[in-house]
């Protein structure tokens, strides 16, 4: 089997998607919290979020909260489906090897 979804199959982007997956549909997470969960630097995280946003897998909302700029990221329906397909591909690799 070829590599599963190349956009998701990158360590930082994979962690971003895995961090967003357990949240309720459309629920955003703040950038700083995502940074803590993923364990990436600010610039690195921002670049990978932009890649996922270009693919339509995440949505980025920027606003002001308590007089401070705030960036929040949520998983889109397309992103959720892509991630589920990606996980299914990984499982099929293991399943095919075990069959």
């Amino acid at each position, binding site marked *: 089997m070829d590599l599963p979804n190349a956009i998701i199959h990158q360590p930082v982007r994979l962690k971003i998607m895995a961090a967003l997956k357990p949240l309720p549909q459309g629920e955003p997470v703040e950038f700083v919290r995502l940074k803590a969960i993923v364990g990436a630097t600010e610039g690195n995280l921002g670049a990978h979020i932009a890649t996922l946003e270009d693919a339509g897998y995440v949505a980025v909302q920027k606003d002001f909260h308590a007089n401070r700029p705030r960036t929040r990221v949520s998983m889109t329906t397309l992103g959720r489906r892509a991630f589920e397909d990606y996980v299914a591909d990984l499982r099929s690799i293991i399943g095919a*090897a075990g069959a």
Partner: protein
Amino acid sequence: MPLTTNEAAQTLRDIARTERRSANAYGYRASSPHLILWGLIWAAGYSLSYARPQWGFVWPVLVSGGSIAGFWIGWRMRPVSKTGFDWRFAATFAAIVLFVIALFAVLPPHTDIQAGAFFPLLISLFYAISGIWMKANRLLALSVAIAALTLFGFFELPAQFELWMAVVGGGGLILGGIWLRSV
């Protein structure tokens, strides 16, 4: 180059680890304001029970106010995808209230501090169950801390139990709520 079985398995483990971490952080963030709220209620309720034991209305008033405030917090923090009221919250709350009423009918507490120790232990049980099922170590730590502080106060400081629970129990819940927010 295609993925090997080991690489696929390792990636799935990484995904599961990150998902659990994110789910725990989300749960901690949702629990935090409730802990702070009930910490304040414990501090006020046990202080008044200690200073004015004849004021029997204190706990019903505080618990009713706290429950309403708790529903309001839950409503404000509801996920963006939830538009309607989830009846399961109200049903869960009703089940707990009915359980406590039934329990006290069968096994009525003989002293005020028995009743005062029962509720923290019940809350500790809920945190233990949540921590076990969510694999959330911070909830487990909170559960152990609440139970240990309550039992210590009950057995070692019965004369000052309410004061102990006001300061250590109430303060502990508030600090616990702040601790959960730090994740």
